[in-house]
């Protein structure tokens, strides 16, 4: 009776950004990787009840995903995400995530919560390998090799998104159900339209179709080509933020802001949509800056603010109105 040890990865927050790395890492170490189901009503409601009121929706949702997984796995992977590049970090809530989870949810299995503190030379990687080796009782060589493979897989994943201009969640579907032939990742080249819209926001909002009520598909149905920050090359993002007076110290928002500046500079989009969750700290500041910049260039911006009460009703109306506005603006220039 020897089955593989099960590692649970909650399908929320940074899953949408880093899952390929984690999946490869744990599989290489001979674990069975289990993820929670796609977000649904029960998971969301459970998360809302477990988390404190003030915390933003994506984190509440994560609590729900953790709760859903806890009884089905031997180990839960809840990393303490600190940084992936020097001089930048992330929202404070990521820094305290394992502690919040431990102190809010009962009956948890073993939690593997390594510090992901990289981007300042080789030390961070050593520590990560060290922590994993000690926790799992494996040799450093083996763990290091698994880490290397994970990072390599991640880099390819990121490159593919930029090269093929494809959405991460479509690619992720491929990863989980590799044998599933019928859901081929859609590409947008086939959409014939003059209208492009920059859809800006954190990956855990843009690619969770339950949370955002299928936003991307809805926009495409309205005849809009959708460009998200993950599709912009790192070089262009960097060029975008170099124009800032003071460097922004959040990695994810740097990507969002840099993408916005790049898209505006190139005139690549006719409009911008900012998808944010109510109470998001970094978005509240960066969103304001993006809006001011777009305003100066006379590019229309629509702000979509999500909380647990977001209903479908007014949503579609607003999207249609925005699409109409973009059509009108472009049409009038003819």
């Amino acid at each position, binding site marked *: 009776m020897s089955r593989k040890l099960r590692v649970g990865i909650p399908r929320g927050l940074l899953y949408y950004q880093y899952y390929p790395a984690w999946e490869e890492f744990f599989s290489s170490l001979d674990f069975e990787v289990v993820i929670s189901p796609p977000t649904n009503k029960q998971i969301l409601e459970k998360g809302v009840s477990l*988390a*404190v009121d*003030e*915390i933003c929706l994506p984190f509440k949702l994560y609590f729900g995903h953790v709760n859903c997984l806890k009884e089905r796995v031997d180990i839960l992977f809840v990393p*303490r995400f*600190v940084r992936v590049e020097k*001089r*930048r*970090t*992330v*929202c*404070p*809530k990521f*820094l*305290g995530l*394992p*502690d*919040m989870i431990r*102190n*809010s949810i009962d009956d948890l299995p073993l939690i593997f919560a390594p*510090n992901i503190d990289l981007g300042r030379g080789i030390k961070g990687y050593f520590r990560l390998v060290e922590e994993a080796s000690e926790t799992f009782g494996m040799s450093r060589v083996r763990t290091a090799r698994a880490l290397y493979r994970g990072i390599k897989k991640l880099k390819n994943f990121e490159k593919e998104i930029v090269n093929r201009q494809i959405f991460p969640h479509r690619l992720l579907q491929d990863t989980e159900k590799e044998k599933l032939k019928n859901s081929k990742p859609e590409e947008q080249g086939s959409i014939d339209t003059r209208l492009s819209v920059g859809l800006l926001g954190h990956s855990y909002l843009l690619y969770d179709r339950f949370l955002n009520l299928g936003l991307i598909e809805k926009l495409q149905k309205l005849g809009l080509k959708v460009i998200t920050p993950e599709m912009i090359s790192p070089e262009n993002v960097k060029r975008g933020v170099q124009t*800032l*007076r*003071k460097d*922004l*110290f*959040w990695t994810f928002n740097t990507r969002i802001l840099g993408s916005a500046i790049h898209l505006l500079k190139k005139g690549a989009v006719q409009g911008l949509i900012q998808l*944010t969750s*109510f*109470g*998001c*700290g*970094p*978005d*509240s*500041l960066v*969103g*304001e*800056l993006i809006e*001011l910049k777009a*305003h100066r260039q006379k590019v229309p911006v629509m702000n979509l603010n999500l909380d647990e009460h977001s209903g479908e009703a007014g949503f579609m109306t607003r999207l249609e109105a925005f699409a109409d506005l973009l059509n009108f603006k472009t049409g009038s220039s003819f």
Partner: protein
Amino acid sequence: MKVTFPHMGHLYVPLRSLLKSLGVEVIPPPPINKKTLDLGVKYGPECACLPLKINLGNFLEAIEKGADTVAMGGGKGPCRFGYFGEVQREIIKELGHQVEFVIIEPTPLDVIRKFRYLAGGGFPVKRILRGLQLAWKKLLALDEILEKLREIRSVAVDFNRLEQLYETACSRIDFASSQEKVAQIKEEIIQEMEALRETGKEPLIEVGIVGEIYTIIEPSSNLHVERRLGKLGARVYNPLTISYWVKRHILHTEKGDEIERMARPYLNHVVGGHGLESVGNSVIFSRKGVDGIIQIAPFTCMPEIVAEAILPRVSKIEGIPIMSLFFDEHTGEAGLVTRLEAFVDLARRKKERKEISKEEEEEVYAGLSGN
């Protein structure tokens, strides 16, 4: 250069001193009032935290009075504060004001660089050093007076007179131009405050305050929570003062080792802002024997939300009531008063039960030992 800056408690007193020594004209914003908040809410981003909005209101009011330069602090995250200045600058520019922002990063190099700039390029070292010394003395004096205020509040014979003394201290020390005068004023005020203590009266309970620094220090951002607690008979302990912050993060004469150590079983990493401190200080307060802890923070404050998620377990394991209060422009006075009264009541009953059970315990021991 007509320089303004944000209000935070009595920060304006040492700051005015300091900026004057750099040779600039100082235009402090008017005291925070409803208009300040309205302006900040109107022009600030909706989900920005209250401190940013209040700052913005301060700047706009000061600009009305002729300020053309804003001196503001910087930071490197992950708390949002580090990027306040950038956003405030853009908003004010968009509103059509020609205002320069001088953002001072909390490093010795940048402080010197920006001071030089404000001083007009030159750096009259002696004058600035004297200015720094006077400013520091003013800050220490006011923080000491504030501590005395906290001590006497819950046992004062004349509550209003006591509050008035603090206001008087601020304006007198603001006006003082020598260290000796500052010391003299401080002694007078502290004596007068002590004289307002009702002899023999003890506070009902002792409460420790933890949370985000701005909302803790600026009373208008927390609906004067400490004053209300004092009126309810609670002696408030609040170690987070401006001078403590300077000693900890600029002079490094205060260390955070104990705080980190006490927080570790609950929170094992910094989370920016004062999130770790909120958890660590809660444990420290509990071990010191306070009767209750109140966490104060602005709505959407990320580090304090992390602490908020963790404090209930601290409360359970340490056996001490902990209440979290998050403030924004919509926070109502009535609701706050109800919560404070309930909290003081709860803490008082727990304290009495502890004392009763202590007495009972002693009786039992006395009986057991055959007395």
